[in-house]
């Protein structure tokens, strides 16, 4: 459960809801908002701090860590996850790595077209 | 003793039983009117009604305020309030007896006045009336005590039956005491030894019952 919370927080940061340096809700506040036990949120915050995503100052609450490299790092993580998923699904569907690569290129091109 | 909480609990019980209380008071008033009408038939009817009101009021109120709490499962709600068993017991006893004593006291005095003022009724009836009416008070205390300590409908009904039998037996017993029987019909109010002894015994019984109730309640280890 704490992993899900970590994900949610990282997404908020990645999307820009919580910019770098910004104060985030206290452990208790977030626990109440999400209806999840305090101890679970506490664990999530500890892990996030260990990963350097947030910074907690005793008595002053928590805030998003400074650093321009924050978003790209989170995106890297997410990309790695998605690629892993794609590889698994490709294998299940019986695609060869080349076929999978083709699919990926198609998707990337389609995305570029939609953007313009 | 938290008197504020005791008052809150008493008022709650009175609120929930307000129509019952009003009805009995009204019936008692009717009994008074009958007693004062001056003819023997009305007096007889009035007496029956009066005694019935007194006995029934005690029973009805005890069942409604004590036995109901357990039957309706509201006892945990009451005991979750900031009170101890002692305050609960005090509130129940006061709620019941205060209501009971109002018509009881009124009717005691009113019947004295009627007997004294009426030419048709020998004044010697007064001590007899006092002893008999006080017996009803004792009986009511017994029912209340049994209800509080046993919290059981069965035991309480048993006490009611006992009280009823006791009352009839008592009436017979008292009117057949030679010194009581002879003075009853006379024109003078005589507080002879028999009457005084009986009254003192009755009051002692009330104190004993109430004291025993408090003691047994405090020794309960399972209040729910």
């Amino acid at each position, binding site marked *: *459960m*704490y992993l899900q919370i970590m994900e949610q927080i990282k997404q908020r940061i990645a999307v820009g809801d919580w910019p770098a340096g910004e104060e985030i809700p206290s452990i*208790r*506040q977030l*626990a*109440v908002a999400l*209806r*999840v*036990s*305090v*101890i*679970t949120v506490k*664990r999530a915050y500890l892990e996030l701090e260990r990963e350097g995503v947030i910074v907690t100052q005793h008595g002053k609450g928590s805030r998003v860590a400074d650093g321009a490299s924050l978003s790209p790092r989170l995106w890297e993580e997410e990309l790695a996850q998605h690629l892993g998923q794609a590889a698994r699904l490709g294998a299940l569907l019986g695609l060869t790595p080349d076929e999978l690569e083709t699919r990926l290129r198609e998707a990337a091109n389609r995305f570029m077209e939609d953007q313009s | 003793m*938290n008197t504020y*909480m005791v008052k*809150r609990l008493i008022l*709650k019980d009175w609120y*929930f039983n307000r129509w019952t209380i009003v009805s009995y008071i009204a019936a008692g008033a009717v009994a008074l009117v009958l007693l004062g009408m001056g003819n023997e038939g009305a007096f007889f009817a009035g007496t029956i009604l009066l005694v019935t009101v007194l006995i029934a009021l005690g029973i009805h109120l005890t069942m409604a305020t004590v036995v109901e709490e357990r039957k*309706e*499962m*509201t006892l*945990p*709600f009451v*005991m*979750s*309030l*900031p*009170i*101890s068993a002692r*305050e609960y017991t005090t509130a129940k006893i006061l709620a019941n007896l205060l209501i009971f004593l109002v018509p009881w006291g009124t009717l005691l005095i009113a019947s004295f006045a009627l007997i004294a003022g009426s030419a048709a009724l020998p004044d010697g009836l007064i001590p007899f009336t006092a002893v008999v009416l006080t017996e009803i008070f004792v009986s009511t205390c017994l029912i209340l005590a049994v209800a509080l300590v046993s919290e059981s409908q069965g035991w309480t009904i048993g006490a009611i039956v006992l009280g009823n039998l006791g009352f009839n037996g008592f009436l017979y017993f008292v009117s057949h005491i030679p010194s009581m029987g002879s003075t009853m019909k006379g024109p003078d109010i005589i507080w002879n030894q028999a009457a005084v002894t009986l009254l003192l015994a009755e009051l002692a019984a009330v104190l004993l019952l109430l004291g025993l109730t408090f003691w047994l309640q405090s020794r309960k*280890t*399972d*209040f*729910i």
Partner: protein
Amino acid sequence: MKDLAVHFEGVGKKYRHFTLDDIHLELPTGSIMGFIGANGAGKSTTLRILMGLVHQDRGTVNVLGSDMPAQQAAAKRDIGFVSEDMRLYKSATLAWHMGFIRSIYPSWDEAYAASLAKRFDLKPQQKIKGLSHGQRVKAALLLVLARRPRLLVLDEPTTGLDPVARQEILGGLMEVIADERRTVLFSSQNTLDIEQISDLITFIDRGRIVDSDDKETFLERWRRVRLEVPPGVVLPALPGIVGTAGSGRLTVVTTSSYDPATAAAYQSAGATVRAVDTMTLEEIFVANVQSRREGQAA
């Protein structure tokens, strides 16, 4: 010295057909403890002893600094209690009950009460006897929540409620500990509710506390290890193994103290670790209780 809202030490209570034995409980201020047990395990008795409604035969009970049952009147000023066998006065309205509680507790918050009534979908003018079971539970909870007690003690608050109502109640309970000076203890048969919001979890079975720890530790410690065991391989008897099941070459070991060394121990004994699965609180509870019952029977 921990600041404990509730402290049971060696508490025992004997009934004719049931005994509560050696109950030890510590609930720090500011946390939520979930109390899980089967019917008749002793949850309700324990909570009644906490409230001073039942006197223990042995042991000490301290709640918010007051000894129970001796100082129960004082303690109950700061405790809100709702139990499954509790009813409100049928012939009165919810509004009457709100007024009654307000006249007793100065901490009653009328605005909060009104907002709770709206959230719980309750009409104060309605008589209690006209309410459904779920509405009556919510009404009782409203009465305790609106006066903001320091300790909330609830015996099966979500039993019999629909999922929407349950989430409302859980939300209400969480709001209580938004203030870190307030504490919640609730019992439930619904392990999902307990798993969602509890910080600490206590298992009770047949009158004894079977396990008590914080939630994350439970979820971390317990695992099901799926092994492929070739013939001739003997599995090492590791500490914390609670149960072993399986047929043929597949064995599932349930352990209450998993760490990476466990998997390594099996590998070096010659077995293949196919998977290490986490367990839900319900699975942990059942495994815990079953193993103890079997242990006692043997």
